């Protein structure tokens, strides 16, 4: 009962009106961008390729961005606004508090990612079916869980973790999948690409391919991707719970 309440309370906090409106606008904007893409590239790549390109460049980046923002709300924001003290002096095991709040943040990130993917799909395919969409939705859900749990752990380790998380989301996750050799295995994005089983995109610039992290040779199987992503999520949740239980978290200005 306690765990369910923590989850619900965190969820209602994370989906406050202002936040929802911002992300709803982002999702709608993606639909608009998709329409513009179609107009600008008329006679160029197929709609399937356009969708794949937009997915890899924008939607799969947005899931990391949303994860960075919402994972900060799990603990870091509470420390920043000094309300952490109310949570940590209640008879709640810290591991439960962290896990439930992380799950709530993950849920919101999944909803955001799905809204963006659906909007993009509708923008490109209209009312026609998009065979890629179901696999993307699964990959985005796993990506939301992996990024959120990872960023929560980062926020437990260091102050002002948002910058590090954004660098990871947009720097590391773009560069590493494009590297030669086996380095792509160090990127969550590579596993998400493997899960989505996106076909190779034809007829687009190398720049777009690079931004989508599609230049490297990704030979990961779906099974491997599932196993690695589940392992990352479990490891981050476990490590986070352990760290949060054993370390001090006090309001920010007092910590400095």
């Amino acid at each position: 009962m306690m765990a369910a309440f923590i989850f619900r309370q965190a969820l209602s906090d994370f989906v406050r009106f202002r936040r929802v409106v911002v992300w709803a606008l982002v999702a709608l904007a993606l639909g608009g961008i998709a329409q513009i893409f179609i107009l600008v590239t008329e006679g160029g790549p197929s709609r399937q390729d356009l969708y794949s390109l937009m997915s890899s460049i924008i939607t799969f980046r947005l899931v990391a961005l949303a994860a960075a923002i919402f994972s900060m709300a799990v603990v870091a924001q509470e420390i920043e606004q000094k309300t952490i003290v109310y949570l940590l002096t209640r008879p709640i095991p810290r591991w439960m508090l962290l896990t439930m709040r992380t799950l709530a943040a993950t849920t919101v990130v999944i909803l955001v990612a799905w809204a963006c993917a659906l909007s993009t799909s509708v923008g490109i395919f209209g009312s026609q079916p998009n065979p890629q969409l179901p696999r993307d939705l699964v990959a985005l859900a796993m990506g939301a869980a992996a990024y959120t749990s990872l960023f929560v752990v980062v926020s437990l380790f260091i102050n002002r973790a948002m910058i590090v998380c954004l660098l990871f989301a947009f720097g590391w996750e773009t560069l590493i999948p494009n590297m030669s050799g086996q380095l792509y295995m160090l990127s969550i994005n590579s596993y998400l690409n493997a899960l989505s089983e996106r076909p190779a995109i034809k007829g687009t610039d190398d720049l777009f391919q690079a931004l989508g992290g599609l230049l490297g040779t990704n030979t990961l199987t779906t099974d491997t991707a599932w196993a690695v992503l589940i392992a990352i999520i479990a490891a981050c949740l476990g490590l986070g719970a352990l760290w949060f239980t054993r370390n001090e978290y006090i309001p920010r200005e007092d910590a400095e």
Partner: protein
Amino acid sequence: MIRLEQASKWYGQVIGVNDVTCQIGPGVTALLGMNGAGKSTLMRLVTGQMFPTTGSVTVFGMDPFANPQVFRRLGYCPEIDNFYEHQSGRKFVYTMARFSGFGHRQAQTRAEEVLQQVGMLERSDRKIAGYSKGMRQRIKLAQAMIEDPEVILLDEPLNGLDPVGRREFMDLLAALAAKGKCILVSSHILFEVEQMTRSILLLHRGRLLATGDLKVIRQLLDKYPHRVRIDTSDPREVAARLVSLPYVISVQFEPRGTGIEIQTREPNQFYDYLSTLVLEEGLPIEGYASPDNNLESIFKYLVLT
């Protein structure tokens, strides 16, 4: 209920609490000290937000750090003035009640009870963002009392309360103490603390400078002269009579000519003799008071000497 054994807390190279040993039991105990003395650090150690670098802290015989068993019996009103501003006071207290393990209906009932106790029931449906400082203090107090805890720690709770609020707050504390609760109140406003309790812990630069009853501590300080201010219409006559006493060290005339201030090493003898002078010899003394009979002076003696 609360026990610290040689507890120290370091923040890097800065010491927050230095080798503090003390026990705190039922009743109201004041934790006194200037800003930066270590009051909030000590509060955080007791409320299990921090663990001591060396030594030990126990509450109900248990280590309080991240210990839900302790938090079930402990309420904490922090010094910080931060809240979930978008929530109403009622919603905030209700949420804290749910976090404390109450079910939905129980939490609603309990939230109403404590809001009533702190005088916020009528105003609790407004958003916290619009609350005055005093109202915020009351809401913080309400959340600390939600579990009817055995131990209540209040960090600078009187900040921002108006005189009526302070009186109500002190009455509430007295009522809780009468029920056998252990209440630790930190403050740097000595006059207010003096009205709440005579049991004090005095911290200075992280060290526990004095502990115990205010009167006992004052007696320990008898090596310092005790000052008495006397209001009189004839300061010269009164001064002439008093300066000849062997235990009067000095006499100082007040600039406006309305009284004198004497220093004595034997306050009890002095007060006896003063009564005799008034009753038997009719010396024109309109009143007297000792500026040393308060915490401020004790604080000065202990800290500045």
